[in-house]
């Protein structure tokens, strides 16, 4: 090599795709060897390959709200144990909510990568474990302190100098109601980290450290240029939005998320400091996850097409207030940390909707809408637990209706439970599974409809758990589009003992009891009166809109 030249774009692009493929391979390793469906089906996991300065070289699409949130774990560990704390062959684990930002079920496993005795990077992955020993199976709906939510780990070594620590695996196994899958998933995560280590070593061996460093700098610079240009295209200004959760799961007061988005030149600042103080129910999250959620919203609007790397998010600053619901500190509970985050993501989109009208969309139905039914199966005497998130409507955008009956953001690519599987496995019948007509917000483009899912209990006794949200701030419309209908859950509808509830723990049920869950729709986009009458008539034919709503809201007979 003669002339000093920045790396050519060809090598840069080959290295860029090699980083990205390394992350995909880590992800494939994790999903292939995971024991629990929550990882291989819900994709409740995330992987990243980092450089020695904790910057992302490649990240694979897992759960969007883990975006850009793995490097915090290696960074914090280094702050605690120093640069010299990293030793070849070590793998670490941590899950503390106030460090990682998420709930204790999410275990982050990571390890340093060395080439010729030089620290060159880290491989990291995070996955949701089924059970980490909380007071209720899986995790509580009404915890008041983090100590009720399971075992809590700061950074600790799970592999020491290449040898797996049996004492740590034993500790983790003993603290889970499902110890076998817990230890199995730990093995899958370690295998994933090992894959990342091998891939980065191979990439460096193939292209050389200098080339890799030059390529990395250029890749980051390209991403930063791309994103700065996109942010600069947004008119300068301060944009606000706020919305509330119904309650924190224990109390009855709404929980407010308030934010401002400031655009100045090619910089964006999202300020969350006016959000409510931390709550006594489990709707808090650590600062790191609040930042991640802002990054998800930013990415959806600014750069959805490219995999994230260390050059991404450089134009973004997030301000979080310690002690608030989004900057939780000990001992505030964090089990349902993602409930305010779904709202937060939608609110950032809402704040910028006027200035990014083509990227924005009306709000979605907003949360996981979890139903849990448990009991003893009288047919075989075995305990059973059906725990399901429920699909709902998504927001419309300029040019398209929102989708009807679709899973929410934080559940990845989760599929609903088929009726035939549900009735075979559990002593229940599903008497209705249908779209909820008129539940989407009206608009020139209609918000998606939520659904109705009705269960009838077919065993002597059972218990009901519910986590349904967003009745106080249902999905809003944009640009004149209407708001959606909020969720409703009715036990024994149209009977003398009808009861309505959205969040509940351990409600007693007997044979013949009916639980009718109805999820909300998505927000509409644009004035309903501007909707093409042919589209309205088609919606009526397809029973997505009633003839009455067609007449009263859309002005179409």
């Amino acid at each position, binding site marked *: 090599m003669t002339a000093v030249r920045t790396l050519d774009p060809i090598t840069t692009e080959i290295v860029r795709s090699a980083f990205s493929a390394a992350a995909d391979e880590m992800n494939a390793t994790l999903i292939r060897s995971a024991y629990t469906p929550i990882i291989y089906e819900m994709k409740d996991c995330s992987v990243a390959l980092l450089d020695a300065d904790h910057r992302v070289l490649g990240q694979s699409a897992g759960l969007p709200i883990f975006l850009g949130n793995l490097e915090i774990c290696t960074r914090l560990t280094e702050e605690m144990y120093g640069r010299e704390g990293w030793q070849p062959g070590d793998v670490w684990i941590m899950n503390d909510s106030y460090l990682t930002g998420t709930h204790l079920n999410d275990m982050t496993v990571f390890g340093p990568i060395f080439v010729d005795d030089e620290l060159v990077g880290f491989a990291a992955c995070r996955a949701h474990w089924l059970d980490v020993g909380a007071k209720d199976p899986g995790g509580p709906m009404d915890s008041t302190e983090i100590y009720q939510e399971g075992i809590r780990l700061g950074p600790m070594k799970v592999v020491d100098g290449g040898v797996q620590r049996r004492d740590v695996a034993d500790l983790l196994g003993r603290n889970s109601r499902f110890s076998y899958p817990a230890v199995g998933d730990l093995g*899958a995560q370690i*295998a994933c980290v090992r894959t990342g280590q091998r891939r980065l070593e191979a990439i460096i061996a193939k292209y050389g450290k200098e080339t890799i460093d030059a390529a990395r700098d250029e890749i980051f610079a390209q991403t930063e240029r791309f994103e700065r240009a996109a942010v600069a295209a947004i008119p300068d200004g301060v944009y606000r939005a706020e919305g509330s959760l119904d309650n924190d799961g224990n109390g009855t007061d709404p929980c407010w998320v308030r934010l401002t988005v400031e655009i100045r030149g090619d910089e964006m600042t999202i300020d969350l400091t006016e959000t409510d103080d931390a709550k006594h129910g489990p709707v808090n999250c650590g600062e790191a996850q609040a930042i991640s959620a802002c990054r998800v919203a930013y990415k959806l609007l600014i750069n*959805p097409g490219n995999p994230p790397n260390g050059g991404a998010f450089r134009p973004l600053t997030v301000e979080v207030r310690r002690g608030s619901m989004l900057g939780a500190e000990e001992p505030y509970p964090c089990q349902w940390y993602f409930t305010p985050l779904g709202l937060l993501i939608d609110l950032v989109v809402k704040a910028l909707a006027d200035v990014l009208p083509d990227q924005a969309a009306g709000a979605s139905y907003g949360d996981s809408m979890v139903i849990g039914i448990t009991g003893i199966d009288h047919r075989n005497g075995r305990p059973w637990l059906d725990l399901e998130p429920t699909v709902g409507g998504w927001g419309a955008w300029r040019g398209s209706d929102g989708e*009807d009956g679709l899973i929410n953001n934080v559940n990845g690519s*989760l599929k609903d439970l088929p009726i035939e599987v549900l009735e075979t496995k559990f002593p229940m019948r599903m008497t209705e599974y249908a779209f909820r007509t008129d539940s989407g917000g009206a608009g020139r483009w209609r918000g998606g409809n939520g659904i109705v899912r009705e269960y009838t209990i077919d065993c002597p006794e059972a218990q009901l758990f519910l986590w349904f949200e967003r009745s106080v701030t249902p999905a809003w419309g944009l640009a004149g589009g209407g708001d959606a209908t909020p969720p409703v859950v009715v036990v024994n509808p149209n009977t003398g003992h009808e009861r309505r509830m959205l969040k509940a723990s351990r409600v007693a049920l007997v044979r013949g009891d009916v639980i009718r869950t109805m999820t909300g729709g998505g927000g509409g986009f644009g004035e309903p009166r501007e909707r093409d009458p042919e589209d309205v008539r088609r919606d009526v034919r397809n029973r997505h809109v009633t003839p009455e709503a067609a007449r009263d809201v859309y002005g179409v007979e």
Partner: protein
Amino acid sequence: MSRFRVSMDIGGTFTDVVAYDEEAGTYVAGKSSTTPHDLTEGVLDALATIDSHPELCGFTVHGTTQGLNAFLQRRGERVLLLATAGAGDVYHIARGNRTRLYDIHFRKPTPLVPRADIVEIGGRLNYAGEELEPLDVDAIRAAAHRAREEGFGAVAVAFLFSFLEPAHELEAERVLLEELGDAIPVSLSHRIAREWREYERTSSTVLDAYTSPVVRRYLDRLEAALQQKGLRVPLHVMQSSGGIVTAQSARQLSLQTLLSGPVGGTMGGVALARMLDRPNLICIDMGGTSFDVSLVVDGRPDVSTEASLEGFPLLMSVVNIHTVGAGGGSIAHAEAGGLRVGPESAGADPGPACYRRGGTQPTVTDANLVLGRVDPAWFAGGQMTLDVEAARRAVATLADELNLDPVELAEGICDVINAKMAQAIRTLTVEKGIEPREFALVAFGGAGPMHAAFLAQELDVPEVIVPRFPGAFSAWGMLETAIRKDFARSYFTPLADLHHEDLAAVLAGQEREAVEALAEEGISESAARVEHALDIRYVGQEYTLTIPLEGADEPAADGFPETLSSRFDAAHETRFGHANPGAPIELVAVRSTGLGDLGRAEPQRLGSRDGAGYPSEEQAIVFGRRERSARVARRDDLQPGSVVEGPAMIVEATATTVVPPGWTLRVDEFGTLTMELS
């Protein structure tokens, strides 16, 4: 007189035939333009190019994409769907999952049946197949009237738990027949896929109702026309499973042909595995604008029991074909000062700049042309001449923007796409628990042999195989397959609760069904072979593994649960890298496959003519950023034993094989090209 075993592949533009001449012991390939007004004309023309005609055919097999095209162009039948009351929206909810996680503008694929054309019918079975509520026959009559009055082309019936107890679906069929006669075809879900999960079964049934009438009409027409022209043997049709059936039975289960198009290539890989004694192959099929990958593992095609077509699930046996990126059509462009190749594709229209159809952005094909790695006059068998200047202009414009030399950029575009394709293949093998180094790479399609050596190098695959007729390999592969009939049904039970006699009886029943079905295909009982397998998982898992059984009576044998458990543990270990011996397992489905061999062509050994010399020319081709003098030979001129050292290029009617510097190409006794890094 039956002299030829013939396969016919009728594409949009060309009709390919590959024939094995049993007298001469040779393969021949013919080609002609497809004749849309009467497809048999194209077939006859193609047969004529190899001195054959229908009367001389002793065996014929045909791969059709008629059903798939009807689906892709959304010109299938208008379908009325009958579903269980309370569950009519299952088809539209479509399990509610999102396949693109960073997309707030996500939409599911638009269902083939609008919600207004779904009729809910009273009548309910429970999880044991017992009737909770009788079928509402009047509602079915009303639906039949609607189907007739509104001019529906097909009726699909998918009721809950019909996979356990089909009585309600059969009753519905009886009533529909009574009302409609055979004017409107009826698809019943339990016949299409006797498996649980109502959405997947409904989707399969709707796809059948939507496409099958098109396929049936086509097969009727084609077979009648060929018979009229003298064909005396049954026409066989390729299925998505990699096996074939007679056109007669393909008419009854047309859905099985839906994804058969690219499967011939994989089955060609299976035949090559046998012929060359290389059991593990990565098959790449790269055309001008496509790149498909499939696997042959231990000499068998990689078959799944479920597939997805533009997001619609299909419960049936399908050879796994993974479409990766866009191959030669991938567009190179600049973004934020960096080079990107794909994922946008120029498609076939406008296509690469060198097609001269209005494309101006440089594609991978343009880059290959600039580098001299394609013979512009020989592209697509000389049917299309490429415009080198247009390719140079397109590449030069981007090179200016990126401040690169055009030749450097052209090779860079190929390097980037090769790296990306290799990475995609590696990820695929990691997911399957396979080590690429233990495989050979089989390259076909017009552009596969052009890129194969580079991909192999990236993957550490030691050997590349370019079969004969790489452009018509799919047609060749079809000649090498057996009759195949698949039977499956849900069978959900924990292993601990298994009634061994009951399972053995179910398997025996399926074996009888399979043998009968093979008899209808002309396979005698002694030539019939039936394989059985169970879908199994650890209790609590979602995904299953298909575990083969030794025979229908194996469940009755002593120690069966232990045998099965350890077989499953071993398979789990191989596939997922870990197992859980001792953990409870459960059965989910029972599968039986009837296979009947129709005899196949003996591999044709080519005699070596005098020595291994061959004529060649020298041409400049770019490798490593500079022009190298490369040897260019016609494949027809190579003989068994010929050795070609890279840099070189082998041209033939349907493909170009690039031999990079450092690689050595040899011709074996079957005329297959193999390449290894020296």
